[in-house]
Structures are given as C-alpha cells and as structure tokens.
C-alpha cells in the first residue's frame, strides 16, 4: 500500500517551534523506507503522524487512496513497533500477540491460528506461555514484531525498534526484519539514527534534519551523491573531509588551492559554478577517496600522519597538512607509522562541492 505525505506540518505542543516542516514524500507500495536523522530531526514525529498518534497541523496523509489525516490510529490499519516498549507486562507472550486480534473481535480459533503463525514467523513459538519477566530483550522485541504482523497491516511502522538491543542482536534482528519484509512484501517505514542500519535495510533512505527532508534516495545515492552538506556529514563513518576552499581557474582546469598544491576539480562542476572564479565553496571528499602515494606523484599533497586507528580490516589515518586534518581509510596491510611524512592523492571522481552559503551540492543533476 502506498503512503503519501503531502506538505505535512507539525508544531511542538506548548511552543510554536516546528517539529516537521512541510514534508512531501511518496512511499511506494511494498517499499522499505528508512527515515534517518539525528534525534530531534522530526523523523519520529513524521512516523507518529502516519500512525495517527499525532495530528498534523497542516498537510495530508494518504494510505493507499484513503485520506487518513483525521482517522483515529485504530482505524488506519497500520502497525507500529516502538523503541523502548515491546511487551505488555500484564500479559503472556501469547496474549500479547493475540491482543490486536481481540480488537477485531475474531473467533478464538482464528486468533489461535494467526497467533501461532506469527509466532512461528518470528521464532517465538516456544515462548508462548511465558510472561514478560521470562523473556529476554531480543525475544520481547520479536514478540512485538509478531504482534505488529499478526493483523496484516497495510503499513509497518518501526520506531528505532533495535536501539535497545545489544550490537550482535541488533545485526541479527536487522536481517530478520529484512527477511520479514521480503516475505510479507508490505510497506515498511523504519526510523533510525543509525546510518549503518539505514544503509543495510532501506530500499530508500529519507535523510531528515530540523524537520525537513534533506534527501530521499537509495542508500547508494545518499552515500555517493549527497544533496547537501548535512547529508554529506551525517552519512558515512567517519564523516566526509570538508574544507572551505576557493575555486580558481588554473589554466584550463578548475582547481582548489591547498597551501600551494592545486587540486584539480572535475569538469562536471563547471556548469554549476557559473564560470565565475574565484568562487568560495565547501569542498569535500570521503576518507575512502584518498590514497597514499609516493612523494614523486605530482598530484599529491604532503602531510604528516598524526593518529592511526584500527578498524579491523582497514585503518583510519589522520593526516595533518598545514591547518587541515584529513581522515583517510586505507587497507590494514598498508604500512603507516605515526609521525611519518606522507603524500595524499584525492580521487577526482569522489570530490564533492557545496555552495559556501547554503550548503547545497554543486553537482549537476538531470
């Protein structure tokens, strides 16, 4: 079932500051979409409006063709999994899963069958008789998934359901949710502040900040083609190297000046730069786009290795060059030593340019 958010606005109660600022979004049928953003960016509020737990101050919400803006949550046929709540403490696992069905006034036999199916699907069949004290956090979260599924909702809403689990369990549950999505093919909205989760789960990612949608796109798009500075810095660990710079015409090519070293800028930016130089910009490059090269390489910037952090198979190296500190990711086998002098080469294709004033990407888009 497709979900359409039309110019949604939500103000914080008890103050007039805006939580969700004119959000327009269409979520396709059977899509798993992830809302990603720092806390307080409005992602959860947006989801709660889809669920009906908050009423928008402006705009409309459609589920399928139905305008549900003013429909009570119980009548929206959505399901929601919450961040810090998983099981009703006064009920057993079985009663928990049966709970949404009781609201539909189904027969006992029908309920029983549906409960068992749902329990089977998330793997809690063995726990049905247990109470909340007798299940672990991960199991409780599975129960909440089963409870969400049992009603066959048109839309699944998940509000950081994994954030209270430990790292290993989180990865495991992530896979499970992905599998569930593939099996049920229902529309799923997943809210998280964890970009790794967003990247691995989402068909598409909605990056939000300060109540606004910053970018909507596939994980690949969001990572490799951030629309603006916010997305560029928020997505990716460690974040993009970003510096103020001035674009200069150096002969035929555009360059950015790095303490005398002129880094060429790809041609694709020329159109958006209005051919007016020198132009102040923010320029950036992800740590993965930097390589160590020999000192002989003319297209390189000299620097000194300050800190080395191991990331397992790779290592994160901080290199100082003048007043700038670059983070570089290289293979663990690459020999680096603290204090060593080195030379950095920037992959032209991975250079990002943003307008200095509003942070918008200068990449030309079709």
């Amino acid at each position, binding site marked *: 079932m497709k979900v359409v958010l039309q110019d949604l606005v939500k103000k914080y*109660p008890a103050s007039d500051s805006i939580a969700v600022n004119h959000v327009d979004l269409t979520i396709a049928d059977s899509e798993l979409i992830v809302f990603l953003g720092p806390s307080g960016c409005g992602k959860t509020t947006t989801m709660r409006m889809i669920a009906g737990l908050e*009423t928008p101050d402006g705009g409309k919400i459609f589920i*399928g*063709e*139905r*305008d549900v*803006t*003013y*429909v009570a949550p119980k*009548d929206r*046929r959505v399901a929601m999994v919450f961040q810090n709540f998983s099981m009703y403490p006064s009920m057993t696992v079985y009663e928990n899963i049966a709970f949404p069905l009781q609201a*539909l006034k189904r027969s006992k036999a*029908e309920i029983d*069958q*549906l409960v068992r*199916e749902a329990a089977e699907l998330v793997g809690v069949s063995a726990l049905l008789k247990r109470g909340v004290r007798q299940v672990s956090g991960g199991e409780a979260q599975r129960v909440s998934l089963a409870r969400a599924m049992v*009603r*066959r909702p048109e839309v699944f809403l998940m509000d950081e359901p994994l954030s209270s689990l430990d790292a290993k369990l989180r990865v495991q549950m992530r896979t499970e949710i992905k599998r569930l999505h593939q099996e049920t093919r229902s529309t799923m909205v997943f809210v998280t502040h964890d970009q790794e989760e967003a990247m691995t789960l989402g068909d598409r990612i909605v990056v939000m900040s300060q109540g606004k949608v910053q970018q909507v796109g596939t994980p690949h798009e969001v990572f490799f083609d951030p629309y603006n500075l916010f997305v560029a810095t928020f997505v990716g660990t460690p974040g993009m190297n970003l510096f103020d710079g001035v674009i200069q015409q150096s002969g035929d090519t555009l360059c950015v000046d790095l303490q005398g070293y002129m880094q060429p800028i790809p041609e694709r930016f020329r159109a958006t730069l209005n051919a007016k130089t020198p132009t102040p910009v923010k320029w950036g490059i992800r740590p993965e786009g930097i390589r160590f090269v020999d000192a002989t390489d003319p297209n390189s910037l000299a620097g000194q290795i300050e800190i080395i952090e191991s990331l397992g198979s790779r290592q994160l190296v901080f290199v100082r060059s003048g007043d700038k500190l670059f983070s570089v990711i290289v293979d663990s086998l690459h020999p680096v030593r603290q204090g060593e002098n080195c030379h950095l080469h920037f992959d032209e294709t991975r250079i990002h340019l943003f307008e200095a004033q509003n942070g918008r990407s200068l990449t030309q888009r079709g």
Partner: protein
Amino acid sequence: MALPIKTQPPSATRQSQFRIWFYHWSQKNIHWFFIAPALIAILVVAIYPIVYSTGLSFFRVSFDSRERPFVLFENFIWILNDKDYWGALGNTLLYVAVTVSGSFVVGFGLALLLRRISVGRNWIRLVLILPLTIAPIVVGLTWNWMFDPLFGLVNWFFIGIGVQPQTWLAQTGTARIVVMLVDIWQWYPLVFLIMDAGLSSLPKAPYESARLEGASDWMIFTRITLPLLRAVILVALLLRTVDAFRTFDLVRVMTDGGPAQTTETLSLYLYRTAFNFNKLSRAGAGATIMLIVISIISNFMFRFLYREQEGR
C-alpha cells in the same frame, strides 16, 4: 497466510470541515477531557472555599454579628499586629522543620536498616507502619494517657529507673518536644514506606561496581544511594511538609496549644480566632497569609524537585 483479513470500506475522502476541525480540536485538547472532571470538582471543593474565606477577610465577619461591613485590610493589619499570630507562625515553622526532618531521619534510617537484615523483614515492616494507620486524634489521646503525670506509663517507666516523673505536657520546655516526638512517631512510617519502596527499586549495578572500586559504606550512601533516591526523597519531604503545615488534630488533643502557647500552631491559632473569639474574618485573613507563605515554600520545593527530574 491464507486467512483473508476483513478490511473496512475506505472512509469518505471528503470529510466535512466540521469533522476535521473537531478532530483537530479534540486531539489538541485531549488532556482537558481527562483533567476537566477533577478540575471542576476542585473548583467546587477547594477553590470556592478558598475564594470565600479570602473574600471574608476583606469584610468584618464574625460569629457574633450579622453585619458584614467592608473593611479592606483591617483584618490583615490586625492579624499582622497580633503577637500571637507571629508566635504561632514561628511555632509552626519550628514544628514543620523538626517533625519533617525528624520523621524523615527516622523513616529513612529504618528503611536503610531494614536492608541490612534478612530474617523477619515482613513482620518488622508491618509493626513499623502501624502508627500511620491510627487516627491522629487517637494517637494524641493515647500519648496523653501515656504521659499522664500520675497514672501514665511513661511516668511509671521513669519511676522504675529511679528518675522523678516529669510533667511532660505541662512544662513549656518539654511540651513542645513531646508533641513533636509524638508527631514523628505518627508520621515516620509514611517516610519509611516511601523510602523502603524506593530503596527496593534501586538498580544493583552501581553498587557492585562501587564495591569493586573499594568505596566505603558511607561513600556508597552519599555518592550513590542519595543521588539515585533524590526524587523519592523530595516526594517524601514534600508530602510530609504539606501535611505538617496543617497539623491540627494531634496538637489540639494533646496540649490545645498550651502551655503558654508554646505549642500553638497556625491551625490552632486560626481555630481559636474563629471559633473561640468569633472573629471569622480575622481567621480568614490569617489563613490567606498562611496560604501565601505555604505556596512560597512549596513553590521553592517544587523548583528543586523539577530541577532534579529534568536533570535526568
């Protein structure tokens, strides 16, 4: 997955303006649906009496005349010039300070102590909260009887250990202390109950790590227990303070404010002014001032409480 789910027919896409407005309104003001009944009740049972008595304090109203001339601040001026009022205010503040801190220390101390033992906890708990279940007037009378200088058990206890019996409730020095002790006797169980419950819900982890780090009991208490229990402590203190301010029954039956008015609390003073001296509106003025004083104190405690809660 074969079972068909009944789906409701799609609701009308065009909803009436009114319905939208109403939905909005009701969602925005949903809290009022819950609060309104209590608020209306409070309006009748609390605000009306307060407004009425405050209103009275601007008139000359007494239990000995039907005329009620408007006198503006006369009653307030009178009451502020009455040394008995200030005496009663001082007594009340002392009473509140001593009994609240006393019942807190005893109640909290016992709750802590109860953690140290394992056998017979339930029985001890039960015995300890008994005084709370007894009506203040009964408590006062019982202790009056205990302190009777000729026939009371306290007296016989003192004779037993070879001390001259004292006339506890008849001397200005001791009456105050005895009344406060009895108040503590009556109310420490409330603090005990709250603190006992608070202690039993403390997490274990900080204690274990502190102990591994070799912290002393005292350090654990001041650095871990107290901070973790701050909100609970404040709730207990607030509840006690609120009730201590309006103490009436206990003092009324034990000393009736005597001897020499050393135990006369504000409640008793107001009672005397209204019912013994017939000066209803003076009592109203006194009560108004008392309410202002109390609100200032409670406001102060509230700020403190909220700072704590928001700091988390």
